[in-house]
């Protein structure tokens, strides 16, 4: 069966520090991968998605970047965090070639102080 992992679960970082959040999927090959951010009490905003290794599409201009160095690994990064980067970050995957349902990881709560 497939599983998705995210770490860390919680992170408190000072403004201006770098960021690296990791997401890995097990039990499937060549998944589509997604990074979302969720502000408190709000819906999900799609940040990046990837349909293959090294293929990244950005949805909104921002202080963040994403990379997919391996088939089942998706990394969200920043060189210098802003206060506005605080939020709940969720990674999700779908089956390759047009899977409709998205399967979410447990999320990372980021607080930038």
């Amino acid at each position, binding site marked *: 069966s497939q599983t998705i992992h995210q770490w860390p679960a919680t992170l408190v970082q000072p403004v201006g520090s770098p960021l690296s959040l990791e997401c890995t999927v097990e039990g499937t090959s060549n998944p*589509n991968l*997604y990074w*979302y951010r969720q502000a408190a*009490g*709000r*819906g*999900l905003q*799609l940040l990046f*998605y*990837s*349909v293959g290794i090294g293929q990244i*599409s950005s*949805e909104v201009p921002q202080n963040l970047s994403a990379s997919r160095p391996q088939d089942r690994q998706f990394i969200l990064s920043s060189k210098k965090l802003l206060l506005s980067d605080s939020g*709940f970050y*969720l990674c*999700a995957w*779908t089956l390759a070639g*047009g*899977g*409709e*349902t*998205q*399967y*979410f*990881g*447990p*999320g990372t*709560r980021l607080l930038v102080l």
Partner: protein
Amino acid sequence: SQQGEEDPQALSIQEGENATMNCSYKTSINNLQWYRQNSGRGLVHLILIRSNEREKHSGRLRVTLDTSKKSSSLLITASRAADTASYFCATDAKNAAGNKLTFGGGTRVLVKP
């Protein structure tokens, strides 16, 4: 603005009552999905309804879709305290690359025992 907008934003009911929430969207879709999120957790897929379907059931869940009005509703019958969560609709727009979903702001449901 987001593709999907849920109404109401919050709902408080007694155990055993039915909970109904609505979702409106703006563009043509391939399908519409409903997800559930417990506080501080990832989202879990509940049900998917395709653009050529009008109603779908899954256990205590009933979803309707009216493509002429660009709206959907989710009904939870005989609610339980464990149904307390936020519920999100998400649309898979036609011609959207990467099987992207656009999420609404969610409905927070509180089921009181």
